[in-house]
């Protein structure tokens, strides 16, 4: 066996960055000089330190150059510019090939210094001066930093490229394949077009979501200022944000309310919603332990679902996508009896798929993005897991977990078959379609996962089922939550609602309030009446902080509001706002009627009786043997009637009312409820129809606009404690909004005929028509003929003679 086949040649393979435990600065000559792609935190390797205990200097090497910079430099997890590290300083070197050795290293010349620490021209390192204190000492010093990785080639076409920082996994893979410290291949060995195509796919910004809160930007500035935003949780560098129609890439996130973008905004905007898209696939990886190149390539490829393939004598990279078939194979192309079909073994399927990634926002904790099948195939469920050290954001990990879960479960069929040289042009990764008599497939799409070109000239294609639905970047789950959470106690009684106000707006009243302070999920109930308990419910289950009451009348309203949580617990005290409506503009009230007056006997009573224009629950009192009412422990009615003890529920159904025509109307009701028990309540239902044949179902009544002609109410009285309850003054209001029509510059060409205008749709009642001469002629207009569908206008001079003229006509009515 060759010496090169003995694994590790004595090197320590343990990764300083990815092993368990905190990052620790090493001092070890068996470690490799890392390669950094994207951004990664590392603690470096100490290659030299001066003597001294109070003040000393040190050189910490981090990676092969050339890096694009250091940031967030910490000593023992304390920022180096923190006051706790007074007297500590550093100089950073990115390893650009021309850099000098730091002046902290003793020696008169660069050669003298190099004799002590090496040339260091191609090494990224920090030179530090340390003043010992309670937080750092010469034997207690872990130096860590975030490294912005090496510049890599980014090709715009197969021959043109720029060299710059990138965390696109494809360009990083290309660099690893071709760099001296990696695979060392020539760029001539690379099928560059496949790398360009795959890199473009990785760079696509996807999954737009609206960020929390609102943002403001200023023209000519790169800053975005948020209000109630959570930038640090929801936005990261490289994301694309869109504000007021302008899309920008994020270059820095300062805190929850401040971030910067790559270029100035062209227009100012305030209180706008911001949408955020993240890059489909990125790579942030430090290669700091010696593993096989295949292992490192797999580590990078897995971040983007990529595969290396051969095309001719070149290496390409592909990422499975939803693409069309490149070749069809029919029964004529398949060598007889060569087809074999099989499915994924049960143990290789997955009920739960986990992708482990690193979360830089939470001290590079190892977090899981989990995708779970809708239905488990196994009990207990089969859990599959992969580790993606190069993924540092949840969404990317989550998309991959969803992909791998569904690929395992929905692409569980495999097929192999032999063909002739007809398969010569195929390579693994190709999408083909097959029509097979054996399985009955017709143009079924498959992915070629493996090929055998056999000695007898046949080509065996081994294929996996293809599912085009796998490639829509679905998230596997929502992001995990770290550290502490700040949830409302949904069980707690909501605080009282504050600052309820009522304001009239034409024929409506707008109610505003300040939401309950202790429960963001609380809903609100508004009632109208003299007291909360006896008031009618205007609206319930409201969210937000505003509500509009339509179709009001000229009277005094008292509105009450309470907050209520998901468990039905109301706030302790109702807030009140009173408003006097003395005038209402532009109303066409066609119905304003108390239907509990003379109509009361035309309705149907169930477990109720009607008396004095009231609907009252039936009494359940009994006549005792001693000749008196049995009123033991029972209440008397407020009006001295016997029958104080009532049934639990009863109803009154009105007759059917007819508006006379189908109208788009606003309907509302008012009523008075008499009760001496807070638990008593009333439920109003109604149904409506346009033809008195087809009716709506009985619905809980809520005032609003409907189109109907016939309507009917049902009043349901409830008394859980069997105490007196009565309802009176049930007033129905139906308002039809005005409809204005304008006919400008209508020309009268024959004076005696005038000009006719027609109304579409026709009015229900004959509308008001007003006309004026519009061409400056002295005279006046007369509406000579008017109906619900048309009007004719004539013009006269001041002598009373009909004239020709142009007239403006306004029509108003309903």
């Amino acid at each position, binding site marked *: 066996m060759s010496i090169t086949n003995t694994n590790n040649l004595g090197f320590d393979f343990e990764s300083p960055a990815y092993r368990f435990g905190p990052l620790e600065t090493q001092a070890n000559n068996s470690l490799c000089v890392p390669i950094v792609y994207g951004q990664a935190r590392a603690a470096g390797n100490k290659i030299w330190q001066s003597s001294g205990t109070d003040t000393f200097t040190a050189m910490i090497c981090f990676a092969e150059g050339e890096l694009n910079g250091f940031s967030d430099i910490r000593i023992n997890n304390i920022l180096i510019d923190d006051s706790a590290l007074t007297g500590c300083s550093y100089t950073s070197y990115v390893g650009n090939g021309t850099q000098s050795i730091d002046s902290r290293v003793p020696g008169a010349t660069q050669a003298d210094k190099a004799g002590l*620490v090496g040339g260091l021209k191609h090494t990224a390192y920090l030179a530090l001066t340390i003043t010992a204190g309670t937080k750092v000492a010469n034997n207690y010093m872990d130096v860590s930093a975030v490294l912005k990785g090496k510049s890599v080639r980014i090709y715009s076409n197969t021959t043109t490229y720029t060299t710059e920082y990138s965390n696109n996994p494809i360009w990083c893979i290309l660099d690893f394949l071709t760099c001296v410290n990696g695979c060392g291949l020539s760029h001539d060995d690379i099928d560059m077009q496949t790398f360009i195509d795959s890199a473009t796919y990785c760079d696509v910004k996807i999954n737009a979501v609206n960020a929390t809160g609102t943002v403001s930007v200023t023209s000519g500035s790169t800053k975005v200022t948020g209000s109630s935003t959570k930038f640090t949780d929801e936005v990261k560098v490289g994301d694309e944000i869109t504000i007021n129609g302008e899309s920008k890439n994020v270059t820095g996130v300062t805190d929850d309310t401040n971030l910067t973008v790559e270029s100035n905004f062209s227009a100012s905007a305030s209180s706008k919603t911001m949408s955020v898209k993240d890059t489909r696939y990125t790579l942030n990886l430090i290669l700091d332990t010696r593993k096989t190149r295949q292992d490192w390539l797999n580590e990078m490829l897995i971040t983007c679902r990529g595969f290396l393939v051969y095309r001719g004598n070149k290496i390409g990279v592909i990422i499975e996508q939803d693409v069309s078939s490149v070749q069809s194979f029919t029964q004529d192309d398949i060598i007889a009896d060569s087809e074999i079909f099989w499915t994924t073994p049960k143990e290789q399927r997955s009920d739960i798929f986990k992708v482990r990634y690193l979360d830089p926002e939470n001290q590079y904790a190892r977090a899981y993005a989990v995708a779970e099948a809708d239905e488990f195939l196994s009990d207990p469920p089969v859990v599959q897991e992969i580790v993606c050290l190069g993924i540092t954001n949840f969404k990317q990990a989550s998309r991959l977990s969803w992909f791998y879960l569904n690929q395992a479960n929905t692409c569980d069929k495999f097929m192999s078959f032999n063909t002739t040289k007809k398969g010569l042009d195929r390579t693994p990764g190709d999408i083909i379609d097959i029509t097979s008599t054996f399985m009955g497939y017709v143009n079924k799409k498959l992915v070629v996962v493996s090929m055998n*070109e056999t000695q007898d000239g046949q080509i065996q294609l081994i294929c996996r089922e293809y599912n085009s639905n796998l490639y829509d970047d679905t998230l596997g789950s929502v992001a995990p939550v770290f550290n502490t959470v700040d949830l409302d106690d949904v069980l707690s009684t909501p605080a009282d609602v504050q600052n309820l106000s009522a304001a009239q707006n034409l024929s409506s009243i707008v109610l505003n309030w300040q939401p309950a302070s202790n429960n963001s999920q609380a809903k609100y109930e508004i009632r109208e009446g003299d007291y909360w308990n006896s008031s009618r419910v205007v609206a319930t289950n409201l969210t937000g902080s505003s509500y509009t009451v339509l179709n009001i009348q000229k009277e005094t309203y008292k509105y009450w509001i309470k907050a209520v949580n998901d468990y039905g617990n109301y706030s302790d005290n109702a807030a009140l706002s009173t408003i006097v409506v003395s005038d209402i503009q532009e109303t066409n009230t066609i119905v304003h009627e108390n239907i509990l007056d003379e109509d009361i006997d035309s309705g149907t009573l169930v477990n109720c009786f009607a008396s004095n224009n009231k609907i009252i629950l039936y009494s359940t009192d009994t006549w005792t043997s001693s000749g008196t009412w049995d009123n033991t422990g029972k209440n008397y009615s407020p009006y001295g009637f016997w029958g104080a003890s009532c049934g639990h529920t009863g109803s009154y159904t009105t007759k059917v009312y007819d508006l006379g025509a189908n109208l788009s109307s606003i309907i509302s009701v008012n009523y008075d409820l008499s009760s001496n028990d807070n638990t008593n309540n009333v439920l109003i239902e109604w149904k409506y129809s346009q033809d008195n044949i087809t009716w709506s179902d009985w619905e809980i009544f809520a005032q609003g606009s409907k189109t109907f002609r016939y309507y009917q109410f049902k009043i349901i009285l409830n008394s859980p404690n069997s105490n007196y309850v009565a309802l009176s003054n049930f007033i129905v209001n139906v308002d039809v909004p005005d409809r204005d029509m304008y006919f400008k510059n209508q020309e009268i060409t024959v004076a005696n005929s005038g000009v006719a205008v027609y109304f579409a749709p026709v009015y229900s009642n004959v509308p008001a028509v007003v006309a004026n001469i519009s061409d400056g002629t002295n005279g006046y207009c007369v509406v000579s003929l008017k109906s619900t569908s048309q009007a004719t206008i004539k013009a006269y001079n001041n002598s009373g003679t009909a004239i020709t003229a142009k007239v403006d006509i306004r029509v108003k009515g309903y």
Partner: protein
Amino acid sequence: MGKGLTTAQKTEVAKTTLKTRTLVTIQLDDGPFRILANDTIANIVINSNTYYTRMVQTSEIETSLDGTVDKMVVSTSDIDQEFSSLVANNGDILTNRECKVEEIIFDGDTTTIIGNPVLVFDGRINKIQLSAKSFVFTIERILNQYSSLSPNMVYDVNCQFKFKGSKCSYSGSQTKCDKTLTRCKALSNVTNFGGYPSVVIPTPTK
């Protein structure tokens, strides 16, 4: 993405009858050694290059998406002892030579070749075996070095740059370097030294 067949070649391979032949090309110092796989045709000229007939057997070529190392074994007759004499006289000049296997597609049953040969496999020769009658060798993809370890550089006290390479930058007349700091100082090239002479060497655990 396919192997890059032309439209005419795709049309031909889709036909029910197809005539193809295999070509093997080995790059030697004196020029390519071109073989036309066993056929009654004495030789064939493609792009001004003549391929001579030999008995050739090839193994399966397995290609997959899972990073499997690709290789194929080629066995060709050596009854004229061309290869054995080559090795006998020059040493092992065959290992690590570039070698490619191609397929040519004829136009129907004629001897007219459609387009250029289609590359089937490409790599470097390894594991040669010679006998009195045959020459057997393995062609390994250029990425066979996938099994090697990376990153290559370690924090070793000795230099790891290639002597006279771009990072070494030595341009003097010396032809050898033992990678030590002492040698680098002697070559007056210490400012480019690619080692870490002061790094701590762990004490072995006893």
